[in-house]
Every structure is written in structure tokens, then in C-alpha cells.
């Protein structure tokens, strides 16, 4: 049109570079904020747990038991009589107490606890031990964590992608039979996953016994990897299905409504006038601008599901964090309970960080706004 002029077109790389910088800045800011958040959360937990001197007591008990074990186990002290041995133990305990500042004001010590907790130095369990026989709380928890992540990760990803896909389809075929079915079924999501779990167990494990009713893998576990995976998958089927049933209709319904509202935005109409293919309109003009709020609502859903983890894992005897907490409560094993809280704080903070980063990627307003 005006070939003599040579308009300045910024290179694609420039845009990318700017985005990369912004994302780094955003991530950095968020990490600092989240570390602060976890610090405060864990510190509050420590303060609360210390209200009755519980943690101090625990520490004392722990020190005493460690030292007495060491003294008793040491052959060189065999000859001492019990009186002397007790004195020796008492002296060592006092030394240790002074070394750890247990006789100093609580404020000082609370920071020491915080430091240890943040390093996942969670102390030793009172009653429980890991399958490998360790009494370290962090070992116990780390052993259970993957099971929980596997189960909930799979279920949630499945729910997310299925609902987004179906919701998009329904927003296009709004008023169709499937659409009306979803509307009718939406209220069924009021019931929690374990409720569906019980029926599923009844049906698939007892009436039509094709799937296992609980556990994570067949006992004894199969030797080769392939069969092991297959067995785990089989065991996962029912709990995942239970979570799916309890969430999917409401999320399809609400997202479909959301997409429907957004498909009457001016820019969608303009995209139609531009004659873009409908798949492109759906992806680029309906899904992309709404992705950020969709992800947020998904995250909220996920957090509420975490809280149902204890009962759901119990229902399916799934050896995860939920079951662990349940057992710890049963055993009054305070270090394990506190440790689990710390792990939950980390998990939550981590999920929020991931969410923030995804948010920044999908929504330039967040990315650029945060940097200014």
C-alpha cells in the first residue's frame, strides 16, 4: 500500500524476551511472597502448638529418650548402676537442654523450631514408623506423599481436561440433550467423593467383582514393573471414578455457563465476522481469555478436595497422607500431626506458586501488571 515507507516491526524475539523477563520477575516476586507466607503459617502453627508447651515437652521427651538409649546402648557404661546411669543421663540431658537453649525464653527457641521445620527436620515420631522402619517423621511422610499425589493428581487433571473439553462442546451445542442431562446432574456434586466411593465399592467390588475395593497394589506386589503399574491403575480406578463423579457435572455445568456468557463478548462476535474457523474461535477467543478464571476455580476445587482426602483415602484404604493423618490422630502421635501440617503448608504454597506462574503465562494482564 505504501511500499516506500518501511514500517518498524518489532521482532518476534523482542516480544518473547520481554515476556521471559516479565515472567522471571513475576516468579521471583511470587516466590518471595510465598516463602514469607509459609514462614508465617508454620510459625503460627508452632506458636499454637506451643501454647500448652507441647512442643517443648516433646523435645524434652525426645532428648531424654535419645540420650538414654545412647547411654544404655553404650557398652562402656554397662558397669554403672541404675542410679549412676540416671545421673549421667540427667547431666547429659541438662547439657543438651542448655545447648539447645531450652532453658532460654520461648521467643528465641521458636525461631530455632521454625528453622528446623522449614528444613523439614520434623523430629521423630512417638509411635509410628515408616515401612522401612524409620522413626523420622519426614521419612514417614515422604513415603506416603507420592501415593496421595498420584491419586489426586490423576483425578484432578482428568477432571480438569474432561470438563473444559466437554464444557466448550456444550457451549456450542447449548440446549442439546447432553446439555440438559448435565444441567439435571449438576446438583449431584453436592455429595462428597467418599459417598460415591461407598456405592462404587459395593457395586464393583462386591456385586460385580471386577475391581479391587481398596489398597494401592495387589498383595504381594507383582515383581515386574508392567504388572505393578497395571495393578496400581486397577486400584486407582474406583477412587478416581468417585472423585470424578462428585466433581465433574458441576464443573462442566459452571464452565459451560461461563463459556456461554463469554461467547457473546464483542471480540468473539468480531472473530466470527472475520470468518475464522469455529475451532479457532473456541480456542483463541473463548478459552484463552477465560483460562485464568477457569484455572482459579479449578484450584479452589482442588483445595476443597484436599480437605476431603482423609475420608476418601480411608474409604479406599489408600496408603497416602490422608490415611497417615488418620492413623496419627488415632495414635496421638503429635510430631507426625505437626509434620503433616507443615507438609500441607508447603504443598499449598507450591500449588499457589504453580497457579501464579500459569496465570502469568496465560494472562498478559497479570504478567505485565505485576511488573509495573
Amino acid at each position, binding site marked *: 500500500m505504501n511500499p516506500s515507507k518501511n514500517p518498524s516491526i518489532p521482532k518476534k524475539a523482542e516480544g518473547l524476551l*520481554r515476556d521471559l523477563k516479565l515472567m522471571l520477575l513475576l516468579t521471583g516476586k511470587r516466590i518471595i511472597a510465598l516463602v514469607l507466607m509459609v514462614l508465617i503459617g508454620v510459625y503460627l502453627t508452632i506458636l499454637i502448638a506451643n501454647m500448652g508447651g507441647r512442643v517443648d515437652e516433646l523435645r524434652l521427651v525426645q532428648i531424654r529418650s535419645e540420650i538414654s538409649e545412647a547411654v544404655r546402648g553404650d557398652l562402656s557404661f554397662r558397669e554403672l548402676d541404675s542410679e549412676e546411669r540416671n545421673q549421667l543421663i540427667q547431666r547429659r540431658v541438662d547439657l543438651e537442654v542448655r545447648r539447645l537453649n531450652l532453658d532460654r525464653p520461648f521467643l528465641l527457641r521458636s525461631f530455632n523450631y521454625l528453622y528446623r521445620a522449614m528444613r523439614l527436620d520434623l523430629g521423630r515420631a512417638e509411635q509410628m514408623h515408616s515401612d522401612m522402619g524409620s522413626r523420622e517423621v519426614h521419612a514417614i511422610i515422604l513415603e506416603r506423599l507420592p501415593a496421595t499425589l498420584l491419586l489426586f493428581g490423576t483425578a484432578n487433571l482428568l477432571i480438569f481436561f474432561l470438563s473444559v473439553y466437554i464444557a466448550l462442546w456444550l457451549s456450542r451445542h447449548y440446549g442439546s440433550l447432553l446439555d440438559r442431562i448435565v444441567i439435571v446432574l449438576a446438583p449431584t456434586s453436592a455429595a462428597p467423593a467418599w459417598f460415591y466411593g461407598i456405592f462404587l465399592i459395593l457395586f464393583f467390588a462386591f456385586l460385580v467383582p471386577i475391581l479391587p475395593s481398596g489398597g494401592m497394589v495387589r498383595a504381594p506386589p507383582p515383581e515386574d514393573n508392567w504388572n505393578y503399574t497395571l495393578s496400581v491403575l486397577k486400584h486407582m480406578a474406583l477412587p478416581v471414578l468417585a472423585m470424578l463423579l462428585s466433581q465433574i457435572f458441576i464443573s462442566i455445568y459452571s464452565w459451560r455457563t461461563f463459556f456461554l456468557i463469554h461467547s457473546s463478548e464483542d471480540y468473539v462476535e*468480531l*472473530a466470527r*465476522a472475520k470468518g475464522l474457523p469455529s475451532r479457532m474461535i473456541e480456542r483463541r477467543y473463548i478459552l484463552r481469555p477465560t483460562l485464568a478464571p477457569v484455572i482459579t476455580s479449578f484450584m479452589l476445587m482442588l483445595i476443597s478436595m484436599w480437605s476431603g482426602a482423609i475420608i476418601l483415602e480411608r474409604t479406599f484404604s489408600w496408603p497416602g497422607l490422608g490415611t497417615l493423618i488418620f492413623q496419627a490422630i488415632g495414635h496421638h502421635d503429635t510430631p507426625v500431626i505437626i509434620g503433616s501440617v507443615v507438609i500441607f503448608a508447603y504443598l499449598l504454597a507450591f500449588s499457589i506458586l504453580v497457579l501464579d506462574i500459569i496465570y502469568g503465562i496465560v494472562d*498478559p494482564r497479570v504478567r505485565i501488571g505485576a511488573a509495573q
Partner: protein
Amino acid sequence: MTEPLLKVEDLRLAYQTERGIVTAVDGLNFEIRRNEALVILGESGCGKSSLAKALLRVLPRNVNHYSGRVLLDGVDIMALDPERFRQDVQWLRISLVMQASMNALNPVVRVGEQVAEPLWVHRGWSRQKAMTRAGEVFELVGVSGDFLRRYPFELSGGMRQRVVLAMALVAEPKLVIMDEPTSALDVLTQAGIMNRLKRIKRELGTSFMLITHDVATSSEIADRVALMYAGQIVELGSAAQFFANPAHPYGRLLMDSVPRLHQTRQPDHIPGQPPNLMLLPSGCRFADRCPARFDRCDEDPLPQSLSERNEVRCWLYADRAETGKPRELHKTPTPVLETRPLSKEVLVAVQDLHTWFELRQWGFIRAGYVRAVNGVNFHLYRGEAVAFVGESGCGKSSLARTLLGLHPPTRGEVVFEGHHLDALNKHELKQYRARVGYVQQDPYGALPPFMTIRRALSEPLIIHGVRDRKEREARIRAALEEVRLSPADDYLPKFPHMLSGGQQQRVVIARSLILQPAMIIADEPVSMLDASVRVEILRLLRTIQNKRELTLAFITHDLSTVRHFADRIFVMYGGRIVEAATVDDLLDFPQHPYTQALVAATADPDAENAAQERELPGGEPPSLLHPPTGCHFHPRCPHAIKGLCDVEEPPELEPRTGHYSACWLHREP
């Protein structure tokens, strides 16, 4: 004769709604030739946007009827199957500029990509090539190529609308449909875009179909005009003929209702409302508002051809062949508004007023101040009407809200009837609020949707301690009577959504009057209303102000509406008052370069407008966060004096007696 580019025959579009069938487009016939601009002019709701959608087949789900022939270069594009239509017609041959809205661009996709998209979708170009082309059209519409990789929210409103325009031009279509492309924009921005359009039409030979409700804007580009009323075209003719001498009674009344900057005759309003599109009368659709109605009008009028390419849908012209001239139009003249001589009693004195808003980041770190009102001084006298004029974001509304006592001033003072506003205690502040009435921009937002009109009007009385039910009722009725909503019984039990925009605004005015204020502040009271209603509301405000000896502060961005509805004008720019004078002196002899630019950008409807581009300052309105140094206008001012204007703030000077202007050009030589 050459074949027209677009020929529309008997186009119809109707929607199915819960309450019935809405016939939005009812049998339209028209054509557009190459390099011709046809303006579709009509009030909102007459079916203009539906016409645009029908031509491009962007239809909502609830279409009930869609028929007609649309010949593009002789081929009926209505008969094409959807896929062919999408690939061959959409955007490559006909494109659309949407009603100017903040929402026409996808917020999460770079604007350059959105502009280039049609090229790689329809033409199969590489992204790189399409992007280069997008850069070219960006330059064409006056946006720097640096913005290609930006997102919509990083662009100002005017720039976004230019991007939407670039999008429409990217594939060099033969026809561009524009639906109210500038109506949400500021005067200067709007005039700038119209300039671009004129140049593009001249240089590229594109045909345009411009849809608007604004007569003045339509005259900026029109070769021909189609006047729409209730789903039909009632007059079709050349711009020269239409703007000078419209034939249809509706066209004549409409032209008389347009406020003009350079005309001393007062605009009239058109009484009544357009018919409901669900319950159309069997006769002429304009009949119940038409001053020339006669017995034949009970029959639906057929289009009467006046000359070649000029027709009118009105029985007045049916027997013209016999009598040689059309029947007379008898219009009862609207009474001329009275004005009273200016009083000398100062009601409000404003001294060195600043209203700054703190901008915080992360909720606690101060990022700076938005200097919305940045040092203004003025007096308002009892019983006068003043207009504050300026572009959006110049601080008009913040000034209004400070005067209303809704924001505390950051510095300076407001003295009302001898009382300092910041010295008032809570009780006195309440008393003060009763003395100052407020009329908002959006009447629907100003009335609680769940309250009846009676309830909404008794609210302020209850708050200010009118206990007696009977007295309240009497005062409510008197107020409704005063804003001419009578009989009051028809309106009292209604909810706001049952009233038209104009009626809602009358209720808001009644509410502002009900506590017997001494002053009324009206913030853009008519900008959300239709043209024919605007004049009506402005006249009402002016009449009440006169009768009650009220002080009226009328805030507007539209210079053409102030001539008959204010005594004095203050022009605001970047949080300051740059010029102040009586209406006639200011409009006829504008002194400040900014006011001169505003006057130059404000069009009075005239077919000549399309022939020339307007002289306009470039650039964007100043940031209130980081205002320019010295004179706020210096980055855009064509007369700026280097080393002075950009350094020192100009003092308020008096180039004509009683006419103040803050500009270095007026200093003594």
C-alpha cells in the same frame, strides 16, 4: 450506468424473544457504489446494528426470520453456503468495524496478531508476511508499528479503535461496514479517526457503510444518507440534499434537534418515542410523532421517488406529481428558553482546589498521585448555569465529586454560601448535601433497581427527616410534576427498568430537586441518551434552573451542546481550567489553543465536511499521574513557545474583557 458494488433487496431480519417477534430489519433496499460512503442514520434500537450483522451473517441464536438478496458485484452472497461465505466473503470482501467498545479486541492476544489473523486464515500467508502487512496498516491508521506486539490493555481507547480499523482494512476489502466506530471516543480522537477515514477512502477507493446515531459525525464522510426509523429506511438520498433540506418529516425534525456550535437558533426536541418493534402500527410508523400527519397516514406509506437515487417513505410526497410541491409541515414552534441577567451574589467560591488520589502498589507502597484536579479557581454566582467542558479524564467528574463533598480536597478550599466545606461537621455536611443536588451520567445506575419510583424519591426526604407521610407524598408529586412526568400516578409504582432512558433521567432530576437545593451538579446528564431526548433533558434542566434561580453546573465533553444551556463556560484540560468566559464569547472567539482545537474538531452537520480534513493537534490527553511540565498542553500545542511553555506554567490572562485564558500567547509583548 455502472453496476453497484453492493445491492440489497428486501432484506429482513427478525428475532424471536420471550415477549414476541422483534422485526429489527424490515424490508431494506439500497445500494452502495464503488468508493462511495453510505451513512445509515437512526436512533438507537431502529435496527442499524442488526443490518450490519445481517450483511455479514453474524447472527445471534434467536433469529426468527432472515431473508432477502444481497448482491456483491452482482453475485447473491445470501445464497452462498456458510463455508463458502466464510472463506470468500467474510473479511476478504466485506469487513466490519465494531461499535467502539473497550471489548472489541481479545484481551490476551497481541494486537498485531489479531490484525494479521485474517491473512493467514483466509489467504494462507505466513505469519511473518501477515505481520509485515499488519505493520503497514498500523501506519496507515496512525498507530506506530511498535505496538504490534502489545496487548489491548496497553493501548489507549483511541489507539484501540484505530487497531480495530486497521483490522478491517488489512485484507483490502471492497466494503467496510462501520458500526458507530467513534461514538465512545473523545472529540479530538473522534475527529482524528474521521480524518483518517477520509484519507483512506480517497487513497484506497474503499466503499464504506457507516452506521451512526450522530448526525454531525455522519456528515463527516457521507456521500449518501439512509435515514432509518423503526426497522425501515424512510429517506434515502445524497448527503448534500439530506443535510441541507431533508424531505421526510422525521428527517426535518431530526435536523432541527441537532445542537450546533455555530448556530444561534435553539434546537428543538422531537416529542414522543419510536414505536415498539413488536407492536408495529399498521400505518406510518412515524405517525404519532408526526406534525404533518393526515388521514392517508393510516396506510403504510410506500417509498416515493423524488428524483434519481432519492426516495422518501411518506404520503406527503405521493400527490406531488399532481400539485407540484409537497404538503406543508405544520410544526408548533418550541418556546424560546428565557435567561435571566447574571446575579452578582457568589454562591460557591473555589480557591486553589486540588484533588489528588494516591496510587498505591501492593496496597501499601505509594506509587504516586493522580492529579485529577490540580489547582482550579472560580466563582459560581447564584442562579447561573455554567458548563465545564473537557475530554474524558481531564478531571471534570473529580471536580464535581469534590464540590459535592464526596472527596475531601487535597489542598485549597470550597466556600459555599459563606461556609468553608472542610470546616463542616458531620451534621452540617449532611445539611450541605441537601443544598446541592446531583444528576449522574447513567440514570439507570443511579436508581436502585429494586425500588419503585415512589420509594426512590422518598428516600432523601426520609434521610433528611421529613417524617410526615402526607408531606412526603405531596413533595414527590410536585417534583414529578416539575420534571413533566405526569400524571404522577402512572410513574410512582413503577420500577426503573420500566421507564425509558429519558424518563429515568427525569426521575433522577426530580430526586436531585426534592430537597430544595441551591445548586445542581449534572455530570454528563445526557451522554447516555439518544439525540432526540438529549435536547429535551437539557431544556428541562435549563428551565428548572431558571425558574428556581438555581445554580447549575453542567459537565460535558460535547462543546456543541453548551451554547443554549449555559451562561458561562470553563474549559478544562489535564486537571486545570484553561479558559473561562461567557458562552458566546468563548464559542465565537476561543482564545486558548486547546479550546480552538476543540472548536475545530466539533462538527456541525454539513455535507461540505466530507470534503476536507480538520486541523487537529496530534498526541494523547495528558497523563494525570505524570503531567507534562509547564503548560499541560505544550506537547500537542501547535503554537508552543520553546523554552517557555514547556518550563513554566502559564498564568491566567485576560485577552478579552471578562474572557480568561491560561496561555503564554496572551502575555503583553
